[in-house]
């Protein structure tokens, strides 16, 4: 309609500016117009007849308007446009070559069909128009981009979509050429985790507009999709896991479906999920244990539902390295306490936890339990970092801060922040504020805010998990399904002697209890501190969860709680060499980057180590890749390798300095075809719109793409010409003239003035 009325499409008006093409002075024209207007007004005012003043005014106004329109036409309005010179410019056509282009639209055609139709020479009018005006250069892109001669070079087999990478690659390939713009044909389902901003800024700087053509349905319906699943990369055998899985759906609201967790064809857990209302995600929480050591591939899946459009986004896989190591934890208690006895009993059957106890029994007398040698802790609490760093976790019981020297207090803080160890502060008469810990270097490590010391404080509390606690594996009490809150309610009250109601900013409370003063009493809180973590468990007698007469003898809540707490304490504590991969899984031929963090025995970063990665392929072929120091970060080394087989790769890395081994670490990588392209596979109109808008291009759908060649001509960069386009003969002006005359005639008829 716009084009019919105004002769040109809106883009012309957006890009150009208006001018008047009539010869002579505009002022002269305006004077002439004023005279004519005055004559018209005078004529209507002075004419004799029975018309009233109001009628005369209306008719005079209509006549003046009519004269104004005619005058405008005489002024010869023009649209001044800068248009791309024909056949002197290049246009890069980027075509999405990833697997998501194989998805079917609602009408049964594939996304790729549109590309074929659009780009097949001799069959596509659009291609012909583009070719007439520009020299075309074709690119295919998925995780990388490359030149192709035409649509014949497309396979739609790319495993990832990297829009930013594709734009960068095309811009660089065409740099130096007069580039009118880039045309990007894609569903926009980027999954490269790379921000677009940098690529868009570069295009803006180069003045290259991007014209995006979005293919596919915006909403794939009906469909169920699992969101990304977050799990720790490695855990100790037997550790509990609580995993939240976000399930989104379209067209399947309120349906109940099973969510299955399986490993090696064995079902670990199953949960019924009732999907939310249309388009609303729901969070399904599953709990399970991993008891067998080694690399475990965990698959979360919802069986394909009848009529589902995409089935391959119903499952997510994660890799967890289940380690069977004995983690050494030092528990220092300032006096004989039953906590020692019951905590030891709770973990005595746990092969992965070695709870070394150092208990002060008199001023300079200590009871040592579970030590490895007669010398270990013979002098009491460690006095050197090396002595303390041999433990991966530290539990501090009811012991006053003044027991420690300042150096030891600083050492405890450094143990967490530098060494990355886990520290657990237990409540008691000599703990927290009551133990004089305020103002010490260790206070900063604590996840709770110390109030004023109140040695007389004593409260009985009924512990309950917070919302964060409900999702935390350490406080599940072994609940495999259902809500652990019920298990907590069944436990008897226990007592606290440290009044703590606040956690530090950045810390999280997992367990709390109503306090006698109406406020809350923090029971369990944690925070990250430097490289490590700090936990505070405030009650003094959690062993009542086992000893109280209200607890059945077969209730394992106390044991489970402390097993999980101590496992959590040492979970993720760094080793001298820590290896991470940038991919959880990769495809054959996809480059994988490994990063090794190397520290010495004092946990100081080492920059001059010799770091070697040893990669064993599924068929047993061993290759060695040296890792180089990144320079940017102390103690960080990187190497790249490209897996060539499908299956499980073992990656080991070892570090040495001056011939002395500093440490080693290992992890696993699975190579298999990826399903990433089938997740969030609806057309991303917003992304494509943003690319177009920020670069000065336009966004199209298959329905609107016909105007693309013309739009590039008007809005494109490159070699351009200035054109003037007449507007005086716009149908809109003619219609306006007729309309004004018609209105005047109609008015006269109505008022009986004819």
């Amino acid at each position, binding site marked *: 309609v716009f084009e019919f009325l105004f002769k040109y499409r809106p883009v012309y008006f957006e890009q150009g500016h208006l001018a008047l093409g009539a010869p002579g002075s505009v002022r002269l024209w305006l004077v002439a117009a004023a005279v004519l207007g005055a004559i018209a007004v005078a004529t209507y005012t002075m004419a004799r007849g029975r018309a009233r003043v109001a009628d005369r005014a209306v008719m005079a106004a209509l006549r003046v308007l009519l004269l104004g329109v005619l005058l405008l036409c005489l002024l010869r309005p023009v649209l001044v446009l800068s248009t791309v010179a024909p056949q002197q410019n290049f246009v890069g056509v980027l075509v999405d070559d990833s697997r998501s282009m194989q998805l079917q639209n609602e009408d049964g055609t594939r996304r790729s069909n549109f590309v074929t139709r659009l780009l097949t020479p001799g069959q596509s009018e659009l291609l012909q128009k583009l070719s007439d005006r520009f020299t075309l250069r074709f690119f295919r892109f998925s995780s990388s981009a490359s030149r192709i001669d035409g649509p014949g070079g497309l396979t739609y087999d790319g495993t990832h979509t990297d829009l930013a990478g594709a734009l960068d690659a095309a811009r660089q390939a065409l740099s130096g050429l007069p580039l009118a713009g880039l045309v990007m044909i894609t569903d926009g389902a980027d999954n490269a985790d790379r921000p677009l901003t940098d690529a868009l800024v570069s295009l803006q700087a180069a003045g290259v507009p991007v014209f995006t053509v979005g293919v596919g349905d915006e909403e794939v319906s009906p469909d169920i999709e699992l969101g990304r699943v977050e799990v720790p990369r490695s855990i100790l055998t037997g550790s509990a896991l609580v995993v939240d899985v976000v399930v989104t759906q379209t067209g399947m609201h309120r349906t109940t479906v099973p969510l299955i967790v399986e490993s090696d064809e064995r079902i670990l857990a199953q949960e019924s999920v009732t999907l939310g209302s249309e388009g609303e995600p729901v969070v399904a929480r599953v709990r399970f244990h991993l008891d067998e050591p080694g690399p475990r591939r965990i698959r979360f899946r919802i069986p394909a539902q009848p009529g589902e459009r995409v089935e391959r986004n119903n499952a997510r896989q994660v890799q967890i390295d289940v380690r069977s190591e004995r983690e050494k934890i030092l528990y220092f208690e300032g006096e004989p306490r039953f906590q020692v*006895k019951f905590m030891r009993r709770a973990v005595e059957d746990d092969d992965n936890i070695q709870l070394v106890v150092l208990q002060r029994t008199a001023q300079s007398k200590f009871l040592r339990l579970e030590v490895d040698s007669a010398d270990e802790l013979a002098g009491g609490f460690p006095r050197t970092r090396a002595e303390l760093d041999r433990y991966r976790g530290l539990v501090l019981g009811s012991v006053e801060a003044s027991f420690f020297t300042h150096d030891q207090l600083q050492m405890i803080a450094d143990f967490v922040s530098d060494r990355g160890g886990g520290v657990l502060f237990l409540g008691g*008469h000599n703990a927290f504020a009551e133990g004089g810990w305020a103002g010490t270097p260790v206070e900063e490590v604590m996840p709770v805010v110390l109030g004023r010391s109140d040695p007389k404080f004593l409260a*009985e509390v009924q512990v309950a998990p917070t919302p964060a606690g409900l999702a935390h594996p350490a406080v599940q009490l072994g609940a495999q399904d259902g809500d652990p809150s019920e298990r907590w309610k069944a436990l008897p009250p226990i007592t606290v002697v440290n009044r703590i109601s606040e956690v530090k900013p950045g810390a999280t409370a997992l367990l709390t209890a109503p306090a006698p003063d109406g406020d809350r009493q923090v029971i369990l809180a944690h925070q990250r501190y430097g490289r490590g973590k700090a936990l505070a468990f405030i009650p003094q007698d959690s062993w009542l969860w086992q000893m*109280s*007469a209200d607890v059945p003898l077969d209730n394992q809540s106390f044991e489970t709680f402390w097993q999980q707490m101590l496992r959590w304490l040492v979970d993720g504590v760094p080793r001298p060499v820590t290896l991470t991969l940038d991919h959880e899984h990769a495809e054959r031929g996809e480059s994988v980057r490994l990063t090794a963090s190397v520290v010495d025995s004092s946990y100081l970063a080492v920059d001059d180590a010799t770091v070697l990665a040893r990669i064993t392929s599924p068929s047993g072929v061993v290759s060695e890749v040296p890792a180089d120091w990144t320079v940017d970060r102390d103690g960080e080394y990187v190497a790249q390798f490209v897996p060539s087989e499908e299956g499980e790769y073992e990656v080991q890395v070892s570090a040495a300095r001056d011939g002395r081994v500093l440490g080693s670490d290992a992890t696993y990588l699975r190579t298999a075809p990826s399903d990433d392209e089938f997740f969030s596979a609806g057309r991303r109109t917003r992304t494509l719109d943003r690319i177009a808008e920020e670069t000065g291009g336009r966004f199209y759908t298959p329905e609107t793409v016909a105007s693309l060649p013309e739009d590039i001509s008007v809005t494109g960069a490159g070699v351009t010409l200035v054109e003037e386009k007449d507007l005086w003969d716009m149908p809109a002006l003619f219609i306006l003239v007729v309309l004004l005359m018609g209105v005047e005639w109609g008015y006269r008829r109505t008022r009986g003035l004819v």
Partner: protein
Amino acid sequence: MRDVEAPASAGGSAYGTHEFYWTRAEYTDVFGGLDDEGFGSRGRRWRGRPFWTTDYPKADRQFLVVLKKMIRLNVYGAEHPVSLADPQLRRYPLIYAVEVGHMDLTADEVRGLRSFLNAGGFLIVDDFWGPREWDQFQANIRRVLPGRSIVELPMDHEIFSAYYQIDSIVQVPNVRNAEAITRGYPGAHTWEKGGYVPHVRGIFDDKGHLMVVINFNTDLGDAWEWAEDPMYPLRYSTYACEMAANMIVYGMSH
């Protein structure tokens, strides 16, 4: 808890103010329940008091004074008796029972003590002598822990080194025998009722945890009670206190 001479001020209400309560087990003995005149339901008692109150509360009070000096322990400073049938018993994971050669537990006490031990409680028994009292104790403890054997604790057991290093088991005499020894009376001896050899025995659970430590043919309680008596030989009080310290440190950590 029961109102006896120098009644205990402790009890459930005091729970939580201290880490450790030296808790004396109240139990029914062979004379049955106690009436106002000091008669048991099965006859008149010795000094009109039940056997569980032997040396009570003086021994407990004196022992607590010494205990605070020996061990850095946040201990409740008064005697603290709790009945074996009281559900609150399980709040005090270490209990002490004397004159167990006269115990005759009720069904509630059997259940209470069994549940206490199976949940992880630790029982110390003391001051009973000779085969007759042994049989009486054994019959009762078998009702509590049927099928569990009573074994001699070897001297390399950790209970003998948890705090003090104890190399031999000493027979601690009652106050009369001890004074006789000090005075050098002819024929003075440490034993009584045919209990000539002192023993430290134990009962373990399925996982090897020591649940009950049995001080047989010895009277640690008298050694604490009469520790201030110049006629009571120091070596017995010393041993009794050392053994008690070891049992407490062990019982709170193992």
